């Protein structure tokens, strides 16, 4: 903070620190509080803890219900991430390359899955794809999650492309590289961190999605969030806290990966400039 001089200023600074501290406790407290409960040996989800036990993790990683949910989350998440990243990256290049008629409309369409309330997407999918036999199928869920994740890829890759120095490609071309060589040896390495963070956003979007799964998935396709939903609704058991902890670890891993990618992208940019 700036140098404080008078006592009211100092008081305000402390009020600011205190209120922000409380907000940080509010933001992180619940997430941190659920972790110890997952290694508590009691059936009750209350403090104080009664003893250490890994049995809830044992149940989480061995029960058929949770392992299938874990598998489904991975299958649907990875498939929709690959699809969304491919489609989204291509589209970002197209959108960055030229202004063609209807560009505004296309941008609105591409961004729409981010804006439209997800329950409407879910109902739309439910009513439209049920007659085609795509509900209660992996394909239907992967399609829905791809649509929901694609805007994240377009936003991140477009931001990277906007920061891409066009003289790089011109320099490569003037040195005799063909368009493909230029793309794979010059452009791609520069935008790769952007693509990777887009993919991480896409995966996180799929990992967090539950409304569409609630409406479209059959019992075979239930994902981790879906199992947690019924777990919370019916009878919250300590296994949920183990599942939650696993997902918190996933969130931390995503956060670290994104931070590393951000640093790498920064290095590439400054390296290109300097």
């Amino acid at each position: 903070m700036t140098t404080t001089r008078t006592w009211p200023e100092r008081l305000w600074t402390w009020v600011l620190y205190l209120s922000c501290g409380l907000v940080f406790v509010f933001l992180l407290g619940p997430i941190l509080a659920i972790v110890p409960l997952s290694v508590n040996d009691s059936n009750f989800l209350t403090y104080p803890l009664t003893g250490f036990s890994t049995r809830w993790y044992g149940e989480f990683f061995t029960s058929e219900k949770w392992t299938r949910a874990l598998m489904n989350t991975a299958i649907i998440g990875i498939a929709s991430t690959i699809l969304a990243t491919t489609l989204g990256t291509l589209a970002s290049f197209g959108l960055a390359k030229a202004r063609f008629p209807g560009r505004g409309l296309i941008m609105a369409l591409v961004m729409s899955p981010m804006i439209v309330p997800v329950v409407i997407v879910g109902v739309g999918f439910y009513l439209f794809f049920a007659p085609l036999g795509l509900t209660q199928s992996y394909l239907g869920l992967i399609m829905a999650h791809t649509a929901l994740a694609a805007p994240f890829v377009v936003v991140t890759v477009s931001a990277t492309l906007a920061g891409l120095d066009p003289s790089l490609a011109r320099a490569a071309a003037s040195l005799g590289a063909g368009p493909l060589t230029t793309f794979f040896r010059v452009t791609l390495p520069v935008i790769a961190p952007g693509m990777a963070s887009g993919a991480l956003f896409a995966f996180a979007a799929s990992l967090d999605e539950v409304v569409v799964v609630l409406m479209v998935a059959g019992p075979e396709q239930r994902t981790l969030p879906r199992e947690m939903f019924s777990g919370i609704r019916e009878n919250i058991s300590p296994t949920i806290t183990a599942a939650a902890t696993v997902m918190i670890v996933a969130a931390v891993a995503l956060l670290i990966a994104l931070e590393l990618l951000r640093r790498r992208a920064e290095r590439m940019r400054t390296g290109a400039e300097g």
Partner: protein
Amino acid sequence: MGSEVTATPQTTASRGDTVASRALLRQLRRAERRRQWGAFALVAPLVLFLIVAMVLPIGDMLRRAVDDPEIADVLPQVTRAFDDWTDHGQLPPDSVFAALAADMASARAAGTLPIAARRLNYAVDGGRSLLVNSARRLPETAPNWRDTLIAADPRWGELDVWAALYQARGPLTDFFLLAAIDMQRDAQGDLTATPADRAIYRDVLARTFEIAGAVTLLCLLLGFPVAYLLANLPPRRSNLLMILVLLPFWTSLLVRTAAWVVLLQENGLVNQVMMMLGVTEAPVRLVYNRIGVYIAMTHVLLPFMILPIYSVMRGISPVYRKAALSLGATPTTAFLRVYLPQTLPGLAAGVLLVFIMALGYYITPALIGGAGDQMVSYFIAFYTTDTVNWGMAAALGAVLLSATLLLYWVYNRLVGGGVRLG
């Protein structure tokens, strides 16, 4: 550009120039067109995919808000016979009664009567049993179908029932859209408010806006100081604190909801701490009610308030405030009259973003709220999967979608303006 070329004087030399520049222009245009097509070809796969996976499903859903085929499909003769009914102040003529009786007999034989019965039930209390029971009581032939029908159920002598059947004759209807805002048509076809004992959707919509508004306000109150702190700390320390905002942001919604259910339960940590601190004697009910919904939704949406405000605040040069201070403004005045106005684009973006997201919430109220805390999304899902009243689901969906798109349009204008201001 083309007009410039044709406007050149008609000398031999310039005609040669014109031909050459025309060729060049053509070439340029062709190259530009090729570029555009190339760009479009790159965008096309995603556009096509989104048309199939977003536009068509949502369009199909919205169509169902005005689509009303059941009565026309199941009772085709009466639908046609309604042409004979000219004076809607009186009961329809005998031909309509006869057509209805014939329709009921054939629909009953085909097993399709329940479809029409369900549709009539949306518009008339007890409409389902009215249609099914009187169909069961009808004889095969009758000298006068009007008397026979009224004898089977006296409600066939009521104008309201016939008006409802008439208005449901399809193929299009405004019934569901009107119902979504608690309006209906009376026997004469005029708009009236739905009677208070049947009106629920205005309450649901008002509640949705109330919850979204309260959560937005809470997020603003909690988010503003944090954004301010993050924007004014040295980068190293603010980056560290930023992780505290980003970790909840990246943590699954279900995890956070589960955490709140555990913490807010009767013997949960929050109640334990409050009792230890002497705030309350006995456990307070914090979950499965509005308090829980406010707490959990604020927790989920708070990062969406902090991040836009932070990014605008970080771009505000400290020079202005220093100038205000050096000109004799008190720190409070400098904050309120110089700093705060510059944060408005970020505040507007955060407020609208959180409000738009909160409007569509479903999971958190469904898990943490009680029966009186469900938002419009809950009813959309409920009508889709539980009661199969797709018209009503679609109409409520249309209302929610319009509100969202309208607010997003405002958001886009404000944030676009905000970027230019910064």
